[in-house]
């Protein structure tokens, strides 16, 4: 129970163990623990960053999709408009063409009518003369009444 030199021996043991802990136990373990803590913190930060990036990417892809859809509908609208335009143009051209054909046909018909009239005129005079000749064979001389026939011809 008495205090004696054991005290000194125990103090030496205590000092030795403090020294061992201070030099060989605590620093490496502290380093390992701090490193691990850092690794975990880094990992969590990286995960957080990845999540954010993923969100941004998702947003970007949604934007791109929406843009593409808009563009596509624009293109479709433009194409429809153009098609309508082309149809209109074609319609117009066709009408013009048809009018032209119609006009030329009419002109031809007119010409034909004119020619037929001309021929008819020629033939009417002949027929009239022939008829008159047959009716008036004896009395009428073609040469004596040529001026009357001429004025008749002119009257047609």
């Amino acid at each position, binding site marked *: *129970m*008495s*205090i*004696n*030199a*054991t*005290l*000194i*021996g*125990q*103090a030496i*043991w*205590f*000092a*030795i*163990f*403090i020294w*061992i*802990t*201070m030099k*060989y*136990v*605590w*620093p*490496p*373990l*502290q*380093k*390992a*623990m701090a*490193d*691990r803590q850092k*690794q975990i913190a880094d990992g969590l930060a990286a995960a957080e960053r990845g999540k954010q990036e993923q969100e941004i990417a998702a947003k970007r892809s949604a934007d791109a999709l929406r843009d593409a859809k808009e563009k596509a509908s624009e293109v479709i609208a433009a194409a429809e408009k153009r098609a309508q335009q082309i149809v209109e143009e074609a319609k117009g051209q066709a009408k013009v063409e048809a009018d032209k054909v119609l006009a030329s046909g009419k002109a031809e018909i007119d010409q034909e009518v004119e020619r037929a009239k001309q021929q008819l005129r020629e033939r009417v005079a002949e027929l009239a003369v022939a008829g008159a000749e047959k009716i008036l064979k004896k009395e009428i001389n073609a040469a004596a009444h040529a001026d009357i026939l001429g004025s008749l011809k002119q009257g047609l």
Partner: protein
Amino acid sequence: MSAEGGLTTTGYIQHHLTNLAVCADAAKDATGHCHGFWTLHLDTLVVSGVLGLVAFGLMAKLASRATAGVPAGWQNFVEMVIGMVDQQVRDTFHGKSALVTPLAITIFVWVFLMNAMDLIPVDFLPVAASAVGINYLKVVPTTDPNLTFAMSITVFFIMIWMNLKVKGFGGYMHEIFTAPFGAKLAPVNFIFRIVEDIAKPISLALRLFGNMYAGEMVFILIALLGLYQLPLALPWALFHILIITLQAFVFMMLTIVYMSMAAESH
């Protein structure tokens, strides 16, 4: 019960509470017991030394192979204990010191292991020792006030060193003579300070010694009951697990508090 049959109850108890002492022949009395300062308690020195060497040697070996990866097995356990101590230091000690955490770890681990020797049934080691010719063996080193005082006095000197290192000699002297009542009452402050500082190592040492000595005494008394000790020794040992851990923790915690008081100016 005891190695020497036919002992009285008093003799048995006294035998268990006697250290294995060595000293010069001149210091021995008629019965061969050592007296005087130059006596060494071999059992205290050897048991505490072996426990410390094994524990801190293994921890140092383990620490040299410690990895930052997933800790496994013993590294996990040691890191858990050391992390707990480190957390206490961080919560209490706000200065910067490479010494305080290792000091706290040393105290907690070493005191816990020495206290844990209490859990070995009281007669196992003394009987085994007497078989090889060692007549006295007090197994629990913390029941020897030499050990508890050695630790608390070492802590006391480290505390003074910490004071000097943080505040400088002038700052330390200023604090001793002016806190807490100011410069006008310097002698009172000085006396208060001496009482306060002397009380620290004494209370540290006697608290640990008293708790472990009393616990050991109860174990010895239980062992005296013969067959009836069986239902009693186990519950007391279970309670004692709390006591040994608590005492190790208290010694460590108070040391941290004293260091933090030394490192902070008033």
